[in-house]
Each structure stands twice: as structure tokens, then as C-alpha cells.
């Protein structure tokens, strides 16, 4: 279990921890936009940059690394608030604010770093997507990969194949839920769900008509987890009612 120093505070963390874990363990906040605990770190937004020095490096020699994906090592020193780190984060946020001038999340973060207005040319046709990649990564993670990033560079965007309703999408909404700027539109009701232009029939409780997931979602997860399909077919409320009835049968209750 390596020991590190984060902003002068000593912390002991697991050997497979990241610098971000170490910073959190030390009670130091490091801003992130593309990091999510349940997913592999990606290192795309670059907001979580920190200064890091290995134990065997010269005392004053620090390297700028991203905390989210850098492994910890015994004797490391991490500084999260040096001038150049703050300045680098400021450039990143300034650039994101130019890309998404109307996005509240970015406005808030930018303001936190003292930026009220971008120094750059604002995107003339902005949307709220910051290309953090969380949506495509979560989609990959659950084994669906219905959407992906397309094109490259400034032209990069998130899209389903051929910009058509994605055939592989199971309508789980994970992409929309994980999106930090809520920029993936969807509609959902007990009857129907729609996302990425694809319509889904909900798996509805036969008695109450309630629904939480789509049929495709149930099939995908049944196959993936080995949990029988029948588990998914009733609503949680119906299940509780069923269970209450079972209790009544099992235990002698008036």
C-alpha cells in the first residue's frame, strides 16, 4: 500500500489506485468532467491535471499528468493547485466555454476558475456536448456499442451509425443519464421510450401497466447476467405485492 503526499497531506492508498483516488483520500478536490467511477478512466477532458513527482526524481522536478488515470507509486508527491495547474485548467475551461457558451455546467466551472466570458471565439452554433465520451464509453461498457464518436478533430461528434436510429441500441438511457450536460434528448413513459430516434416498446407489468425498462434492455441483460427473463417482467410494486402475499401465506397472519 503506497504512501503519497497530496498537497502536503500524507495518504495511504491501494496499489491499484489512481492519483485521483489518492487526492480524494486526502480530502483534496480535483475537478473532472470525463471521469466516472464505474468506468475505465479515459483522460480526455484534461481538467484533472495535477503536478506529480516520483520518489526518485529531483525534488523540484514535477510532471503534469492527469490524475484520473495515473497510477500511484510509493513516495509520490502530488500538487493539485500549483500556478501552472490552475492556469492549464483555466485554458481548458476557457476553451470549453468557447465551445459551449450556454452550457450551465461549463459556465459554473469556468466561473469557479474566474472566467466569466471566454477569451476565444465562441462557437457560432453551440450545443451542450463537451465530447467527454462518457455516453459512448458507458454504451461500450454494457456491451452494446450502439453509438460512437465519429469524424475527428474539431469535427468529432457523437452519433449512431449513419446518423440513423441505431440498430444495436437497447434503449437503456444510460448514455443520457450519464451525460454531465444532459444533452442527449430522450422521451420515456410507461408505454414508449425514444432515444437516438429509435422507438422502444416498454416491458410493461401485466397487472399495473407500469414499466421501467425496454424489452431489448431486458433481453440484453438477461443474456449478459444469466438472470432469467421472467425476473424482468413485473414491476417492483407488483413484486412487493406478490411478496406480501407470500408472507401472508407463509406466516400465520390474520
Amino acid at each position, binding site marked *: 500500500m503506497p504512501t503519497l503526499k497530496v498537497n502536503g497531506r500524507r495518504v495511504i492508498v491501494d496499489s491499484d489506485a489512481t492519483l485521483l483516488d489518492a487526492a480524494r483520500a486526502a480530502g483534496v478536490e480535483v475537478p473532472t468532467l470525463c471521469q466516472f467511477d464505474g468506468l475505465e478512466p479515459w483522460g480526455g477532458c*484534461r481538467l484533472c491535471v495535477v503536478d506529480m513527482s516520483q520518489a526518485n526524481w529531483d525534488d523540484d522536478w514535477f510532471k503534469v499528468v492527469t490524475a484520473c488515470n495515473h*497510477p500511484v507509486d510509493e513516495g509520490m508527491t502530488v500538487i493539485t493547485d500549483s500556478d501552472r495547474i490552475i492556469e492549464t485548467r483555466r485554458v481548458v475551461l476557457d476553451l470549453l466555454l468557447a465551445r459551449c457558451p450556454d452550457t450551465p455546467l461549463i459556465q459554473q466551472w469556468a466561473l469557479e476558475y474566474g472566467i466569466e466570458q471566454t477569451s*476565444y471565439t465562441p462557437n457560432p452554433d453551440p450545443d451542450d456536448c463537451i465530447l467527454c465520451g462518457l455516453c459512448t464509453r458507458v454504451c461500450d461498457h454494457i456491451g452494446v456499442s450502439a453509438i460512437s464518436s465519429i469524424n*475527428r478533430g474539431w469535427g468529432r461528434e457523437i452519433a449512431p451509425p449513419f446518423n440513423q436510429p441505431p440498430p444495436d441500441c437497447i434503449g437503456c438511457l444510460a448514455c443520457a443519464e450519464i451525460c454531465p450536460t444532459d444533452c442527449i434528448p430522450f422521451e420515456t413513459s410507461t408505454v414508449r421510450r425514444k432515444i437516438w430516434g429509435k422507438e422502444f416498446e416498454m416491458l410493461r407489468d401485466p397487472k399495473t401497466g407500469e414499466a421501467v425498462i425496454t424489452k431489448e434492455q431486458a433481453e440484453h441483460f438477461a443474456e449478459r447476467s444469466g438472470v432469467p427473463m421472467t425476473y424482468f417482467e413485473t414491476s417492483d410494486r407488483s413484486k412487493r405485492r406478490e411478496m406480501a402475499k407470500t408472507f401472508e401465506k407463509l406466516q400465520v397472519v390474520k
Partner: protein
Amino acid sequence: MRIESCDQFEALRKQSLEIEANRKQQVLVCCGTGCLASGSKEVAEAFADEIAKRSIDATVDLFVKSTGCHGFCERGPLVVLNPQGILYTKVKPGRVEEIVEKTLVGGEVIPGLLYKDPVSGERVEQYGEVPFYRHQVRVAMRNIGRIDPTDILDAIAQGAYSGVAKALFEMSPHEVIGEVATSGQRGRGGAGFNTARKWQSCKDAPGERCYVLCNGDEGDPGAFKDRSIMEGDPHSVLEGMIIGAYAVQANEGWIYVRDEYPLAVVNLTIAIREARKYGLLGENIMGSGFDFDIKISRGGGAFVCGESSALMRSLEGKTGEPRAKYVHSTDKGLFDLPTVLNNVETWAGIGAIIERGGAWFASMGTERSKGTKAFSLVGKVKNTGLIELPMGTTLRHIIYDIGGGILKDRPFKAVQTGGPSGGCVPEELLDLPVDYEELTEAGSMMGSGGMIVMDDRTCMVDVSRFFLAFLEEESCGKCTPCREGLKQMLHVYGRIIAGKGQAGDLELIEKLAAGMQLGSLCELGKSAPNPVLSTLRYFRSEYEAHISDHACPAGVCRELTAFEIVEDGCDGCHLCYKACPVDAITGVVKELHVIDHEACISCGACLDVCPTDTIRTFPKHELEKAEVV
């Protein structure tokens, strides 16, 4: 015939040498991309026909020589006649009969076809006497121009695969790494990481298998050394990879080649097939018990795939997005297994290092940068082409002694090295000895060895903008500083070259550049500001002229530049009239020509063709002033 032992290989080499020695005369026709474009294939066919017709005892070897290797591509096709070693330039099929008649049969040299030295004006007869060639020391390019790349026996006769024989039969993997360590060779792809150390890390890394890769995704605009090596001597690359694979005990390798290099793919494919046929590749190489095979993977056209982690993703069939390198690819590379990735030139040098010894290689170059390095010398220089020199050679020597100086003897302004990740080195640093550290200190870098010479007609703001535009198109878009930063940097440059630059723009550029250098994920983004920062460092006044005076001193930026023909210089040659794409020039032959400023699009085509140098550029706003007056 499959080679089953070291002795059999030695016998084959002797046999090949004999065949070579028995060839009375050789006509070597350069068939690199450049010469092919000028019709060298037709020339070679004409030679074959002519020789067959006369039944002369000579063989015609279709000879692939690297484009620009002598800087004659623009005057190609090139023909070398052996054993005399005569070099003819600009050979057209129509002159083949004359060459055969006079030189091959009559033993007489045709002066008009010889190379004329632009410095001394003298005609040079001997191939090896050309100054451009005389100053070079070729290691990685040792066999280019000497062998037919499609003939493995020709290569073996010149020593190819001897290093493999030595490594497999006389050395342990440990000793191979030791020899490479002695050589001090550093990666020729740009970053300059120590080769032996890389191999050792891979060898030490845990994993059921490991891989050996060759980076042939030479994407830097202005660099073509790797293409020349793959086209001209693919065997040197295979040889290096076999030795490297033996050192780290890998059984599989890939060569990742740019899609834009079709001839390299063809020649490598032939080389691999031939090597397999002779048992130099595949199972049980030369009967040594060591198995290793190589596959070729064509890139999809993305500069970023030259970056190691992106290249590996591309080999896996994915988009070429770099990953953080906090875990080295020698530990977790291709398919998350230990991987050695070296550049084409690095691999090409390995065979020679093993054969001649690491100490020999280390005896060349500088303290920190050993051996020789290949460069593509291009731009506004008289002799453009591919050169290989000991590290530590000065820029002045390269540009003036080898390159023959600046085209049209105009003033030198800067030399750009290291491609889009490099920087511009100004005149005051011409005596800089070229090695990894010196170039980095000067704000540039070695990169893949592109050297683009620029004269006073090159606008440094425009050049920086060119690199930014290139990188903006090539950025993968994964990380914020690179994707958004390049876009915004271009916005600012767009303002500046349009004469709409504002006070504070240069400071904004510098702030953004610093953020990109520290914040970007991979080397593409981290080094993207280099051309910007180096031009700001050495040519700041040129930027200031654009911003405060609304003038482009080099007369390149269109929105700031107007053209006029100086009255007393024009001899009415009419060339500018023909060159103008928008018919903005009026005038008849032998009379003064005039440019119509209304119609002129400031493209500069007239200035480029004017033989008397009488076209003058001046800031466009002076036109408006004149109108007001």
C-alpha cells in the same frame, strides 16, 4: 531454396556475389516515386528493348532508388551506368538509343546528360563525386541505390541478413541487446528514446507473448526518409526486425505503412514473400529454431497514427486515438501485451550495428546522439533530397555544402525541422550542430528528419498557420486542449493574416500554447504549439507587422499584399501574363506589363515565374491610401 543452416546462408551470399561480379554492365534506372512520375519506367523499358535488340552482354536492372536521394528527382529519371559509375540525369526514352550507342558500346560520356553542380557550375561525371553525395555517411540507407529491392539475392550479395545470421548463430538475445546498447542508438522516429533500453523493458515485461512493430506511418509533411528506405531497401527493415524480435523473443511482427505509400507496400510485400521463401522469415529461421513472421498493415490515413499508442489501436482495427502512456507500451502495447515499436530508420540501422559492432556506430555522431541520421532536405534549396549524415553536422553544412544553397540565391530565412511538431530555426543558429538536444533547445525538434528550407519569400505567420491547419485536420479530437485549442489558435491566426489582428493576440496565443503543451494528452497536441512558439521567438516582429502595420513583410498573406511590376525592370517576357490565373496582367511581348489591382487575387504566381525579379510586393492598404489621395 530454403536456407537450413548458417553455412547454407554463407554459400548463398557468395553465390549471389559472384553473379553480381559477373555482370559486365549494369544500367540502373531509378524507379522511386519521383522518377517514376517523370517516366523512368518507360526509360527502363527502352533500355531493355535496345539492349535486347543489340544483344549486348549487359543486364538491365530495374532499380528502385529513393525519390530525391540526390535531389535530382525534379530532373529525373536518373540512370547510373556500372561499372563506370556514370550518372545521367533527365534521361528521356528518346535518348536511350544514344546512350547505348555512345556510352555502353563506345565507352564515351555524353556531357549534356551529366549532373551540373549548381555551386561550381561544373559537370560531374562520377556518381560518387557529386558533392551532395560525397558528404554523406549512409548506415540506415546503406543499400539504397545499390540494390534492386525486389531481388533478395541482390540484397544478400550486399550484406543483407548477415546481421541476422550473426545474431542467431553467434549471439544470445542478451548479447544482441548489449551490442545495441553499446551503439547508443536512439529512436529515429522523433522522440529519441534509447533503443536498447526499450528492448530490455519489453523483454523484462511479463506477458505470454510480445510483439515487434515497425512504424512506417511517416506523416510529417516534408519528410520521406522512411518511404525511401521501405521502397529502396525493404530488406534492411526486415533484417532489423528479425534481430529485434530475436532479442526480445517475439514471434510476430507488423509493419504499419501509410496508405499514401503504395510502392513501399508493394516492395515490402515482395521482400517478405522472398524472405519467407528463403527461410529468412517464418518458422525456424535459417534452421536456428527461432520463429518470426511479419505482416503488413496499411494505415487508413491519419497523421496521429504515427503516435505509438494510436498506431497500436489502429492495428487492432480501431480508431487511432492515443492513450495515456503512464503505462509503457513495452509493458502493455498491442493487444495489451509487451510491444517494441521502432521507426523504419531505426530498424534499418540495426543490421549494420550487429554486423559491424555497436562501437563502430557509436564512433560517429555526438556525445548524446550517436551514429548517423537521415534527413529529407527540401523547400527553397537547390539540391533537394534525402541525405544521411553523422549527428552533429551543422545546419550550415547541410544547407549550403550539401543543399547547394538557397534557390535563386535568395536570402535564407529559416529552416523548419521536425515537421508539425518542430520549429523554425533562424539564420543566427545556422552553426547549430544537429542532434536531439540541440534542436530541442532551439525550440524545434529532430522529429522524423524533415528539413524544410525557407527563404525571404516565406511568411513565418503563414507557415505557422499552415502547420496549425494541418494539425487541426489531423487531431483525433479526444482531448480538449488539442481539439479546441488548435481551432481557436487558427481563429486568431485567421484574424492576423487578414489584417484584423488585435492587441493582445500574441499574448493570447502564448497563453493558449502553454495550456496545450501542458494539458494535451499525446505528443501531437503537446508539440502542436512548437511551430507557433518558435516563430514567435525568432520572428516576432513579423507577427507585429501583420498586426500593427497590416503588412506581410514576405508578401505572402493575400489580404495584406498587393503586387506591381517595376517599370524599369520588366523586359516583357510575358511569362507573368501566362502564369496569372485570373488574367489580371495586361501587356504584350517585349513591352511593360501591368497588374490590374482590382482583378489581382494576390496569389503570387507572377512573382514566382518572373525571371528578372521585377515584381514587387507592398502592403495592400497603401493602395487604398493612394485611392484616397
